[in-house]
């Protein structure tokens, strides 16, 4: 356990090193957020929906702020798979799946926190209807934080499954690209899931992708009431178990038939 903890700490520290790149990324993401909100505002003015626009604005900002949680991936691992460096990691007295799970967890957590804090501060300062509004209730906010934590575990487990595919195919761009795109759409980054047709939402919100950011954001904006929160968290927890289990099984199988590249 101590070993995993120190891996986590090391990785977390590494993620805070490139602050200039973070600043550029944040400004870009803010710009995208403003554009998206302008588009939705123009649409909303023509045909208001049955919830206030402020909820959509908050949804967009929270998605943009935690964007890095969805998309960060372990570039070292990709290199190691391609070059055969993964052989060294096989020698470590650690579970390989756990080792990489902790690494990606630290990377996603620190990477997104580093970007989210300045972005959310900026978003709060924007005028009403453009910026991030306060959470629906204090209880909702607490549930949302718990949901975000579970979402983080969920997205890390998903990332390891994607990596499992990469170990098989060695091509990081094809399968990984496809799965990542699917994630961006179904997690609500391209279009808020709340704007999908209502009949689709019933299914989409049950998928693992919706557990990553959509579920906590809905808890924050109050579209899911605190009374429903335990059920949502249970769905999240169930997906974490399923995804982690699948990932572990996949990695163990991969380890048995692993072919080390390079020489």
């Amino acid at each position, binding site marked *: 356990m101590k070993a995993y903890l120190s891996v986590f700490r090391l990785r977390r520290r590494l993620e805070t090193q490139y602050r200039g*790149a973070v600043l*550029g*990324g944040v*400004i*870009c993401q803010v*710009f*995208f957020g*403003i*554009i*998206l909100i*302008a*588009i939705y505002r*123009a*649409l*909303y*003015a*023509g*045909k208001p*929906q049955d919830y206030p626009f402020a909820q959509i604005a908050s949804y967009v900002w929270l998605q943009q702020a935690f964007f890095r949680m969805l998309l960060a991936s372990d570039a070292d691992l990709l290199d190691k798979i391609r070059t055969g460096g993964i052989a060294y990691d096989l020698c470590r007295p650690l579970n390989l799946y756990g080792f990489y799970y902790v690494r990606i967890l630290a990377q996603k957590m620190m990477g997104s926190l580093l970007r989210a804090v300045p972005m959310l501060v900026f978003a709060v300062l924007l005028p009403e209807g453009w910026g991030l509004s306060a959470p629906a209730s204090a209880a909702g906010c607490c549930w949302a934080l718990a949901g975000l934590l579970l979402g983080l575990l969920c997205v890390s487990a998903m990332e390891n499954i994607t990596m499992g595919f990469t170990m098989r195919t060695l*091509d990081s*761009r*094809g*399968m990984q*690209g*496809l799965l990542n*795109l*699917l994630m*961006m*759409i179904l997690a609500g980054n*391209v*279009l808020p899931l709340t*704007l*999908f*047709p209502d009949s689709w939402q019933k299914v989409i919100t049950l998928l693992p992708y919706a557990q990553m950011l959509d579920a906590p954001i809905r808890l924050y904006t109050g579209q899911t009431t605190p009374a429903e929160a335990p059920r949502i968290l249970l769905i999240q927890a169930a997906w974490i178990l399923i995804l982690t289990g699948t990932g572990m099984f996949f990695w163990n199988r991969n380890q048995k038939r692993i072919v080390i590249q390079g020489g």
Partner: protein
Amino acid sequence: MDTIKLYLHSMRMLIRSQLQYPASFFMQTLAQLVMEGGEMLAVILLVDRFERMNQWGPGDLYFFFGMMSVTFYLTECFGRGITGNFPYMIRTGQLDTCLLRPRGLLTQVLCSAVDPRRITCIAVGVAALVMGSSLSAIRWTAVKVLLLAEAIVCGCALILGLFVIEAIFCIYSVKSVELVNALTYGGRSACQYPIDTYPRPLRVLFTVFAPFALTMHVPGSMILDKPLFGWPLWTAFVSPLSGFAAFGVIFLVFRRAIRHYRSTGS
């Protein structure tokens, strides 16, 4: 003429080399389809929920989306050297070899890469154009076809120019500056929708500094018979030229910047 022959020759070579790994190529092309298909899906779902945006109906919105996709991905496909590799070439010092050869620098960079995977994105764009045109019941005339072609060509020039800005920053700072993505990819995302969607500061940005509105939305709205700001027909032919004007200005800046180029190579 010679330059064009050279460009076509290198395109042929590059495409053939990419097809050496058919499975990977196929997967990546598919991924591109999912990506652009997802963007298109977002527009369709928004139209499904909101029906219209200001004065623009569903067909109009698909048409604008299609114009942007076709233009942007034609540029990304054939201008890959500039849109993708240029900062990398500066960072690694590969540009040195180009400086030694008796050809224009941009020509050589353009000849260095092509991205045929974008073909599916362009196809999605064409589908959106066709869908938009039939939904909005556009009566096509020779003038309108000419207008569309002009808008796309000028749009490509504009987008290439915006990507050169990144290269200019790169010459001074070596590191590729992602901030410029706000103009290129941000411009693409924003100007999939007509310019009157946006508040004034964004309108100014996309009309004066990165004139997507002039190269795409003015002719586009003319084709849809809903001219923006009530401007007359001739403006739709003149305003896209701003794309070439922007490219020209950026190219001149680039020429100056390249004098400061200090190789990073070892």
